């Protein structure tokens, strides 16, 4: 006897459905439907009041018509009427219609709410369930407002039927998801947790979904659920398959509930209580063991259910990431599945392994399956599985296997499904960059990428290769040679032309010595592609040509000829025309010096996070690129490939703009770009440092060539415009003025003066870009107890806005209270193009700044020297010379130190002696210094004596770095 009585039904409905089914054509069907709609409409509008049955029948017909894809714009009122019927079937269809057809912002909600309210209060469990279903299905805010208070009461009331509890739990969950602010935690919370112990498994199942969700936002309030969940899980896992009667599914006890429990546990860290943890580990081991047991049934449902639990258990093991033993076991288990004949299992195993690869405990174990995974990528018939295999290869890639994986991915790309090509390209580009040991390999890989899948190579990818080539001078020649060869191909992708144009324009000279790639050959090769390219590429090529004129004067006539021809100088595209005209003019009137300056080689790009990673992240949606991916990118990619950061010695004191902030900046950059909308499409205006010439100043929306790169350096700066000048604390020991810090964005200059125990420091913040810095703040802090030794206060806060090219001054008043060794920290934050820049520097404030020189004679000196003979009063260092040992240089340094340099005091004329008093508010500390150079050995011996041991020590440390 079937549970559904097939016979009972509505005759009119059945006839209507049959009619539709008998329609021979779409037109006939539409005609029949329209006829029916007209009929129903007239019935609903008619004078005669319809009985419940007819209403039900018509509403049901409307539902059917809706299913066929026709809009239903009436009948809602009748459905609402049915809600207040006393007949179950009528009420039921009314609720169904509303759940399917009413969206959350309907005006009917108020009427519906009224009916729901009545049903909830009816104490008839069936009606209550219908009402709860309706709330959960519509889940609108109005409903949440109306019922968020009532439902928790129903859920935890002692006399509520199990089926109603079940519905109430999920209903509350739905409301919490749509309007978390309206569901208030309260006294019911603790009682909800105890539903995990409920007799009725259905109630537990529903409650667990609710608890999982609530505990993510309020972990502390639901903490007790962990031990309850573990004990529940342990009871299920260890029970014989028959214990749970109905909830046993093909010999697997309560698979769904087990999965949910395991999922709940993933909201929390491993249990702290040893006993609970032990029990849980036992459960996990049992689950892993069961996977190895022979199946209790041959049915596929049995293994499906068993594996569902296993996969969830593995997720939990990965989440805890603290049990190496379990992790490796999990990995081995998944390894078996990789070769399983069930496609689903292979898919799931690949997917789980992806997360497993990010754990340090199991990364190596995952790597052992590389051949299988590569094989899956090559031979799987199913694109879903191949995609997972590609994901896994990406996740398991590290320095040891990068070349192999990248090669496999590249070869797969040739035949890859179109749907996943773009993602594959991004992944290859990222891996190649992240694990590049030699840059020629990197350049080869990316050029191959463009060759194989040019259409799917997004701008970010080729921007990136150019950034890297520009920043690494050791690869430039190779890159020029390689692109030149790649461009020889009769058909080459436009992206290749872009890269080729850019690189030859910059570095074509490096291969011009070879007659096979002489300047003219290079130019002709590029120009042969010109006419097949889109406008932005042509614009780029024009810029490359003008660069050629600078690099190779012998090509000038040929190129001018090209620029002069009508198709350029009268091009209908305004950008191309402007470039042709301006470049032509520039090349004819400017002297070679001017030309060389304007068309100078691009300066290195500032170090930044790979924009490709951001792109992949955006493409995959949040969560798809794990945080560890990004971290790794920062670690490996950031430090290694971006030349700029490597050029100067890194100083630990300087925290250059944080990569993560920059990454965010890339995504929020578009507002800057949109300002130059007209030029927006011409992202390729790569030579915009040509300043007055280039109308489209290189602003774009991806952070690749944002204007910072093209901004002229501050006029007063004589330093080269590139590469951060790291602050080295010792540079300022002997001098008071200079450039404290410089990077691509910002230059900080410093001037200081000291008298007695007081000082004043002027800081100059120069904005090197053409874009304003906003929210600019600078704060000085004294870490630790430094505060009690030195006071360092700005006279007033800095202006939060620093215009492009402008300079800002800040004055610090300094008072030395007592001797100190650490230095105050200067923290600078500002937003540049949406990206937060954060910089912390040590102020060059050292104890010697407060020296008062003391002149004295030989006798005096040695008398005092002897007085300071306690061991702790002396500090001595013997060290190798790092700088010139020239006498005059040493003299200048010692004078800069602030002490008096005493001539004719030391019997050995090669030695230096100095005397001074450190002025602090608390006391005055007399100091004597003796420096004994040994030219032959290139060594010094430095001795300091003072009345205070800390001062001797500190001065000795400071000075030892100076010589």
């Amino acid at each position: 006897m079937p549970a559904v009585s097939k016979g009972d039904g509505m005759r009119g409905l059945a006839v209507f459905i049959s009619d539709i089914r008998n329609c021979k054509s779409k037109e006939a069907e539409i005609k029949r439907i329209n006829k029916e709609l007209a009929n129903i409409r007239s019935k609903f509008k008619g004078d005669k009041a319809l009985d419940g049955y007819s209403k039900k029948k018509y509403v049901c017909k409307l539902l059917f018509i809706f299913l066929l894809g026709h809009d239903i714009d009436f009948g809602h009122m009748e459905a609402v009427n049915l809600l207040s019927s006393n007949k179950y079937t009528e009420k039921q269809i009314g609720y169904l219609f509303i759940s399917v057809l009413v969206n959350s912002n309907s005006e009917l909600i108020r009427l519906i709410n009224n009916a729901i309210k009545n049903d909830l209060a009816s104490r008839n469990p069936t009606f209550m369930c219908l009402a709860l279903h309706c709330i959960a299905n519509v889940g609108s805010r109005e409903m949440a407002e109306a019922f968020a208070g009532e439902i928790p009461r129903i859920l935890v009331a002692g006399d509520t039927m199990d089926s109603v509890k079940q519905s109430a739990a999920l209903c509350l969950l739905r409301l919490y998801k749509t309007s978390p602010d309206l569901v208030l935690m309260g006294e019911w919370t603790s009682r909800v947790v105890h539903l995990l112990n409920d007799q009725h498994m259905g109630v537990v199942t529903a409650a667990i979904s609710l608890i999982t969700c609530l505990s993510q936002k309020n972990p502390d309030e639901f903490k007790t659920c962990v031990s309850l969940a573990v004990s529940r899980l342990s009871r299920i896992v260890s029970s014989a398959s028959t214990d749970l009667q109905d909830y046993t599914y093909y010999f697997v006890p309560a698979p769904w509930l087990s999965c949910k429990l395991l999922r709940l546990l993933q909201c929390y860290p491993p249990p702290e209580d040893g006993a609970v943890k032990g029990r849980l580990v036992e459960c996990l081991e049992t689950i892993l063991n069961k996977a190895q047991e022979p199946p209790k049934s041959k049915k596929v449902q049995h293994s499906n259910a068993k594996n569902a639990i296993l996969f969830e258990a593995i997720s939990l093991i990965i989440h805890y990431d603290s049990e190496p033993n379990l992790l490796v076991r999990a990995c081995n288990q998944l390894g078996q599945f990789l070769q399983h004949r069930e496609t689903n299992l292979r898919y799931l195993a690949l997917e789980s392994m992806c997360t497993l690869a990010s754990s340090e405990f199991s990364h190596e174990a995952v790597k052992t399956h590389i051949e299988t995974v590569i094989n899956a990528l090559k031979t799987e018939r199913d694109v879903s599985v191949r995609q997972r295999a590609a994901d896994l290869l990406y996740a398991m890639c590290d320095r040891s296997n990068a070349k192999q994986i990248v090669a496999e991915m590249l070869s797969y790309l040739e035949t890859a499904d179109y749907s996943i090509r773009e993602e594959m390209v991004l992944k290859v580009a990222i891996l190649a960059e992240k694990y590049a040991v030699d840059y020629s390999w990197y350049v080869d890989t990316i050029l191959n990428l463009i060759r194989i899948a040019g259409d799917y190579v997004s701008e970010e990818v080729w921007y990136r290769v150019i950034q890297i080539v520009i920043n690494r001078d050791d690869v430039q020649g190779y890159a020029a040679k390689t692109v030149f060869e790649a461009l020889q191909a009769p058909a080459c992708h436009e992206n290749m032309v872009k890269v080729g144009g850019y690189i030859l324009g910059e570095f074509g000279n490096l291969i011009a010595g070879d007659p096979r790639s002489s300047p003219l050959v290079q130019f002709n090769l590029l120009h042969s592609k010109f006419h097949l390219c889109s406008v932005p590429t042509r614009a780029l090529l024009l810029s490359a040509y003008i660069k050629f004129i600078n690099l190779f004067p012998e090509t000038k006539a040929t190129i001018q000829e090209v620029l002069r021809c009508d198709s350029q100088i009268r091009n209908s595209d305004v950008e191309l025309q402007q470039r042709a005209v301006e470049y032509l003019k520039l090349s004819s009137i400017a002297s070679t010096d001017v030309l060389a300056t304007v068309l100078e080689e691009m300066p290195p790009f500032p170090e930044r996070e790979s924009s490709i990673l951001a792109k992949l992240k955006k493409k995959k949606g949040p969560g798809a690129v794990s945080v560890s991916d990004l971290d790794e990118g920062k670690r490996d990619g950031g430090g290694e490939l971006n030349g700029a950061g490597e050029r100067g010695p890194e100083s630990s004191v300087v925290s250059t703009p944080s990569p993560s902030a920059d990454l965010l900046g890339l995504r929020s950059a578009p507002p800057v770009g949109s300002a130059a909308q007209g030029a927006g499409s011409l992202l390729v205006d790569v030579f915009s440092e040509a300043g007055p010439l280039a109308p489209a100043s290189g602003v774009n929306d991806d952070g690749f060539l944002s204007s910072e790169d093209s901004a002229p350096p501050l006029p007063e700066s004589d330093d080269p415009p590139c590469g951060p000048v790291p602050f080295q604390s010792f540079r300022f020991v002997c001098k008071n003025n200079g450039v404290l810090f410089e990077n691509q964005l910002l230059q900080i200059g410093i001037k200081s003066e000291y008298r007695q125990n007081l000082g004043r420091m002027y800081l100059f913040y120069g904005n090197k870009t053409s874009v304003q810095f906003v929210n600019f703040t600078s704060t000085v802090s004294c870490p630790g107890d430094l505060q009690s030794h030195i006071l360092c206060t700005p006279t007033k806060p800095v202006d939060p806005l620093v215009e492009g090219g402008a300079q800002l001054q800040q004055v610090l008043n300094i008072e030395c209270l007592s001797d100190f060794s650490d230095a105050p920290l200067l923290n600078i934050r500002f937003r540049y193009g949406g990206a937060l820049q954060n910089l912390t520097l040590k102020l060059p404030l050292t104890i010697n700044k407060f020296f008062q020189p003391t002149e004295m004679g030989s006798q005096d000196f040695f008398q005092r020297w002897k007085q300071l003979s306690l061991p702790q009063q002396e500090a001595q260092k013997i060290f190798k010379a790092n700088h010139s040992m020239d006498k005059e240089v040493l003299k200048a340094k010692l004078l800069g130190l602030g002490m008096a340099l005493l001539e004719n005091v030391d019997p050995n004329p090669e030695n230096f002696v100095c005397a001074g008093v450190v002025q602090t508010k608390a006391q005055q500390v007399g100091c004597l210094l003796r420096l004994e150079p040994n030219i032959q050995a290139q060594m010094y011996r430095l001795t300091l004596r003072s009345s205070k041991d800390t001062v001797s020590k500190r001065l000795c440390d400071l000075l030892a770095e100076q010589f």
Partner: protein
Amino acid sequence: MIKAILIFNNHGKPRLIRFYQYFAEDMQQQIIRETFHLVSKRDDNVCNFLEGGSLIGGSDYKLIYRHYATLYFVFCVDSSESELGILDLIQVSTIYIFMTVFVETLDKCFENVCELDLIFHMDKVHYILQEVVMGGMVLETNMNEIVAQVELQNRMEKSEGGLSAAPARAVSAVKNMNLPEIPRNINIGDINIKVPNLSPF
């Protein structure tokens, strides 16, 4: 969370659609078409999981589907965090067993369910679904419990009796009338589904 449950036949005709997230009506139809296009081109022995189509939200969603005789059953679920940052993911392996429970329940309730049952008893299918999924969340996984609930509904319907009980014979007559040949039984896995040769409509 389950975003949508779709059942359509081999020709893409929808037999049951249930969205738990609001989509405008025409969008719903487009999603059905897109989903049909995605799953119908797949071979029978490939895996049962794939990424969602662009209309429903792309790779943030997963489709879990099964093909039984003339019908495709498709569940569309989240595969990334919800907008509130709440992780409410159900592993595809888990949803897959649940989906099987649903199909088995239908099979039991209708005694060898076939496409015609879904057509002529659309409302009943909805009610069964309602016992299983609520607001996109799984309510009950115990088949016996679900069947008991359905039987309870049935008894109430009977007790209300009256007119609704009358046309029973008419329905079965109509049903037989449309069948060009006697349905044959095909064994797919463990579920018997009658496969009538239906003319698409």
